[in-house]
């Protein structure tokens, strides 16, 4: 591990300037909740709703991260990712499929010749409780297997013990392994507990070279929340002011219906502008969200509420 404090990451940000940002992390949680809930009252209807729903489909990372995942399951999911609703030719493909490293090769083969990317969770997702060498191996394996994007977890043990430097260094090291491969860093906001911690972890991850910061693993009962997303987007904006770089945000865990997802889009649009309304900078990690979005699109087009069994499984 690098202990030299002058070491800089790829974005050329020194540890000192990260520290400065991190220690200036006071958040007015009452004001935050007020702002987020006031944005949740926007009513998005008809044409705008359809546009939003189509956008959500193109921003989805279709995910399966279970011990029971098989090649068959991945191939079923990949088919759905490429063509989420075969009965409607206007529906986009989703952004990516997200799998464990062992299944990257299978996933890559199945989405070949489509716009769908393959994301792999690595660094011993979801706990990340292994030595650094293992995390690097895990990540290297996923990249060699063909992953376009890598989702890692921050070292929550180090973070909660106050060893922010270790958190930073680990991400820097993993970004070095990733090179041009997109790096998404999962903060696991449910473990961080406070908004201040979420802001600190966001800034550390961004400064260390993450291309995306992501709310949750989806393995905790506490998943993403719009408040957590708000804190993270503010950090992304501050980071942009500092470096000129636009990092992305991925929200995951517990976003099950279209209404909730649209509220996230409102939040992003109001606070960050439409630059972020693109799969390159904003993603939903969800398995059940997509089904509800497809149902709602069909409802808007036909006027009839739909049943889940009319859509592909995966």
């Amino acid at each position, binding site marked *: 591990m690098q202990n030299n404090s002058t070491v800089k990451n790829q974005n050329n940000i020194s540890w000192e300037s990260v520290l400065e940002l991190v220690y200036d992390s006071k958040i007015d949680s009452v004001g935050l909740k007020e702002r987020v809930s006031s944005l949740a009252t926007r009513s998005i209807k008809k044409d705008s709703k359809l546009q939003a729903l189509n956008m959500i489909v193109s921003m989805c990372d279709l995910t399966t991260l279970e011990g029971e995942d098989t090649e068959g399951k991945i191939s079923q999911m990949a088919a759905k990712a490429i063509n989420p609703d075969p009965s409607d030719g206007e529906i986009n493909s989703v952004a990516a499929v997200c799998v464990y490293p062992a299944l990257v090769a299978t996933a890559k083969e199945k989405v070949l010749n489509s716009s769908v990317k393959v994301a792999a969770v690595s660094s011993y997702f979801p706990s990340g409780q292994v030595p650094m060498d293992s995390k690097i191996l895990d990540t290297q394996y996923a990249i060699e297997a063909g992953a376009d994007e890598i989702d890692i977890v921050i070292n929550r043990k180090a973070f909660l013990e106050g060893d922010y430097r270790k958190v930073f260094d680990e991400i820097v090291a993993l970004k070095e392994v990733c090179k041009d491969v997109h790096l998404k860093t999962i903060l696991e906001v449910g473990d961080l507990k406070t908004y201040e911690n979420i802001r600190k972890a966001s800034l550390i991850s961004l400064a260390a070279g993450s291309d995306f910061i992501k709310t949750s693993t989806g393995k905790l009962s506490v998943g993403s929340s719009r408040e957590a997303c708000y804190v993270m987007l503010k950090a992304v904006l501050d980071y942009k002011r500092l470096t000129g770089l636009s990092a992305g945000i991925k929200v995951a865990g517990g976003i099950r219906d279209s209404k909730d997802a649209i509220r996230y889009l409102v939040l992003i649009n109001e606070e960050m502008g439409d630059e972020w309304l693109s799969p390159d900078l904003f993603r939903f990690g969800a398995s059940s969200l997509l089904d509800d979005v497809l149902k709602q699109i069909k409802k808007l087009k*036909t*006027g*009839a*509420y*739909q*049943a889940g069994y*009319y859509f592909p499984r995966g």
Partner: protein
Amino acid sequence: MIEIKKTFKNYVDGKYVRSESGKTFNIEFKNSLYEVPLTSKKDIRDAVTSSKSGFKKWTSVSPYTKTQILYRLSEMIEGNRDSYIDLLVSSGVSKSNAVKDVNNSIEKIIWFAGLADKWEQLAGNLNPVSGDFFNISHQNPIGVVFSLNKDSNSLYTLLSGILPPLTVGCSVISFSETSSILALKFAEDINNSDIPDGTLNIMSGDFNKVSEDISKHVEINLISLHEELDINELKVIEENASESVKRIKYLPQLEGLSSILPYLETKTVWHPKGT
């Protein structure tokens, strides 16, 4: 003593809710004017989502336990019989008819409670076929049932739309119009009887305002009409429903075993006779 008037609400997914639209309509009884929820399209959608999961919960309850739960429902009504009689009288029913109505209702529930673990024997069949096969007509609950109740202040009539589908394992959205007070009161006893949340949702409103969404909703499997509709209105509903092959049945008051048959669908199973 201060007189406390009750605000009746819809009963959806085990909770008492107002209409999300905030709209209400009035029902006038002898000494009271009630403001009850005017169910909106979104309320219907929520109720169907809840009924869908309610159906899963209710079908996984064993017939034996269904019997006990329905029996408990009759116990709950028995304990509240005076309040039912008062409400019926206040709606304009004579005292003696009100007493009769509640007594008959309790008996009806007990009869259906008994049927819950017996209807499969009575409605299913082993069919004669020429060949070494068993050919079995296996009866299954049809799924989510939307029931438009008859406009009448009678608990017995209300139960005629609810108990048959419930007994065979369907989940029910029970919709009443001008006589909805009784149904909304009945929801309180459903809540106390261990029927899983979402299995029985009770709503009040104007059927015309929501009929399009109901007839088009793919996840409703059967619409049972206990109130006669205008022929043109029925035609539109039937056309909408045909898109999702939804069944629509006009069901006058049926009694006994024949009352459950509309809520069943038959699965035919062929099985070789083994030796």
